[in-house]
């Protein structure tokens, strides 16, 4: 199959490419850029004039809900959603049921994903057995089965000795540990940021220090152990400052932010909108602005969707009882685009935070368009605005704080291994 993507604006930040030209795909790989290879006879031509051609998106956090939570979403539904959003590689957290703490489960998940012939699925293994925070999981076995790193998802890990030992152990073999910084005690029972909104609405609160204290602990432990750590879902202004300082001190640390947190704050909870019940909680306007500045100056490496489909029943309950999470994999590109437009950032700078940089964090060869590289490509119309509505979402989860809003950026084509897997 030979595909010619004709006259699009090709943006490949890793190779400093940003120009209107054609891209040529054959046998699943990128074969030429600009001028066609000799004797070129395409099977298909995609007219990409006015469209942007980028490496397929790489998402650091997408819950596919399998195994165990098929009533919320299935691999099929979420993989369809991923490619509809231009996502071609994704990391999935281990908080499934059973949790991904056994090589067999990881192999099964990878196998199931492969047969769907959609996005490349890269599981994160459980850092501790059962995510109970007590006994380190068989990291070596899990890595062999295909885990690209180890995570504790949103499960509490209050025992700092266990954290210390697991980081030491991971450092021994060079595994990356993905941690969401949250002190288990300070965050216990909380459902909203400890600010004006939680005060007014009478919602149990999570103070910012739940994040900063955990971050300070993690940074000290990185220094002690030499472990490579990826910080997941930063949410506070003070947290951004801690990561900025750690990077300045040349600590081996990377971090991401969920795309929701670049746009929303606690005020968006309004009259108890359960779609705004997220982990970490939406914080103040100042926190949101600090996160935006953190992405702009590179303190925050990557933007992820933090896709977490939830079924309607789990949201149609009082705010404090609502299950946290929102469907978002189809909104990653539009919301990142909206952010970069509002901040007057270059398209390339934004694209790198959803392609090249997350791929680097995952340790996979993806997120770029080198000649000879696997043709995982997203083609989108930056001028197409669309309304986020239940019917417009492929994901089985329909709950998002952005319902009813217009967002820019419609993915027109997604290619994986050179095959068109999505067209709209």
């Amino acid at each position, binding site marked *: 199959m030979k595909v010619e993507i004709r006259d699009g604006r090709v943006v490949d930040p890793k190779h400093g490419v940003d120009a209107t030209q054609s891209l040529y795909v054959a046998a699943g790989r990128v074969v030429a850029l600009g001028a066609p290879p000799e004797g070129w006879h395409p099977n298909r031509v995609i007219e990409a004039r006015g469209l942007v051609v980028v490496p397929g998106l790489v998402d650091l956090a997408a819950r596919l809900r399998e195994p165990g939570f098929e009533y919320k979403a299935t691999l099929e539904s979420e993989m369809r959603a991923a490619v509809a959003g231009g996502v071609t590689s994704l990391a999935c957290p281990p908080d499934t049921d059973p949790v991904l703490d056994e090589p067999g489960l990881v192999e099964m998940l990878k196998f199931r994903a492969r047969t769907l012939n959609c996005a490349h699925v890269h599981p994160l293994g459980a850092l501790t057995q059962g995510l109970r925070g007590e006994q380190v999981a068989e990291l070596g076995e899990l890595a062999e089965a295909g885990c690209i790193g180890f995570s504790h998802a949103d499960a509490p890990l209050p025992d700092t000795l266990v954290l210390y030992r697991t980081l030491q152990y991971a450092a021994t073999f060079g595994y990356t540990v993905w941690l969401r910084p949250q002190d288990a005690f300070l965050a216990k029972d909380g459902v909203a940021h400890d600010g004006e909104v939680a005060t007014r609405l009478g919602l149990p609160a999570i103070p910012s220090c739940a994040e900063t204290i955990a971050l300070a602990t993690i940074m000290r432990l990185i220094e002690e152990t030499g472990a490579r750590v990826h910080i997941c879902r930063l949410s506070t202004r003070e947290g951004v400052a801690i990561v900025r300082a750690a990077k300045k001190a040349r600590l081996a640390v990377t971090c991401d932010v969920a795309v929701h947190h670049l746009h929303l704050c606690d005020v968006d909870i309004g009259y108890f909108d359960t779609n705004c019940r997220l982990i970490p909680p939406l914080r103040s306007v100042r926190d949101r602005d600090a996160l935006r500045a953190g992405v702009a100056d590179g303190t925050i490496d990557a933007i992820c969707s933090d896709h977490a489909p939830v079924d309607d029943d789990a949201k*149609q309950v009082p705010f404090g009882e609502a299950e946290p999470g929102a469907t978002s994999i189809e909104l990653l590109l539009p919301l990142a685009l909206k952010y970069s437009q509002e901040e007057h950032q270059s398209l390339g700078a934004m694209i790198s935070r959803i392609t090249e940089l997350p791929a680097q964090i995952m340790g996979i060869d993806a997120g770029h368009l080198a000649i000879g590289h696997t043709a995982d490509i997203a083609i989108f119309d930056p001028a197409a605005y669309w309304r986020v509505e239940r019917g417009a979402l492929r994901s089985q989860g329909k709950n998002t704080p952005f319902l009813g809003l217009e967002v820019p950026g419609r993915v027109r084509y997604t290619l994986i291994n050179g095959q068109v897997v999505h067209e709209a």
Partner: protein
Amino acid sequence: MNRPLNRNPQLDADGALHHLLTLEGLPREHVVRILDTAESFVGIAEREVKKVPLLRGKSIFNLFFENSTRTRTTFEIAAKRLSADVINLNIGASSTSKGETVLDTIDNLCAMQADMFVVRHSQSGAPHMIAQHLDAMAQTHVHVINAGDGRHQHPTQGLLDLFTIRHYKKDLTALRVAIVGDVLHSRVARSLIHGLTTLGVPEVRVVGPKTLIPAAAANMGVQIHHDMRQGVRDCDVVVMLRLQNERMRGALLPSAGEFFKNYGLTEEKLALAKSDAIVMHPGPMNRGVEIDSSVADGKHSVILPQVTFGIAVRMAVMSILAGGSA
């Protein structure tokens, strides 16, 4: 980002009161109308026949997802004095966990032609959710009264507190009010604070240890005091909040005794307030924890009149909601 906020959840398109969910953002004219209407109901209790036919034929469901005897009883009395049919449903948290969701319960009761729900729930925002659901299902003739939701609001309690204050202190724009105790967990405090500021009370204080004052209390327009003596000094009204037993465990407070020593209202502390100060409490009281018996039963106490006024205020709210805008 400009998300479309829902319209005011308790007013209809014409600005009339449709549900009573919170005193936050409830326009002054509605508050005054409720208090004035309640005034006219106070006399009914003294008549031989304590009934008026305003809500005859209406079905009012008391939906208590959290146990309460006192509040439910006062709502029941209020509804019966308005000649409504009252159905009490005590739905403990356990029965909802058995399967039926809150909204399923509501749909079922709507099918039984309910006209009004009086809702108490342990979760903040539950009555909002029910009201939004009813509006979404086009059950626009059904009204919701919040009878206490989590830590959020207890608007009829706030209104009866305002009624009591207005009864004893004619000019609200010259008052100093102290609210003392567990503000963090108190829906009573959150309602009263908004009610007082709406009616133009110039100085509202909250008094308690840092563990029991919410993070952004100052943003609600109150002064924060941690010293009880300073907090009640020269006040016209002292509102004591109930301290739940479970708050005395853990790290919030060391003991009931130490709390009483610091924040319990004694005659000695009350002497620092104005000589004609009134003492209020939403009940049920913990004597010797937040209030000394001599104060609770003393001449400054208006705690029992609060209960009496509470029925008139709830009658007023019910009649305004279900009686239409007449």
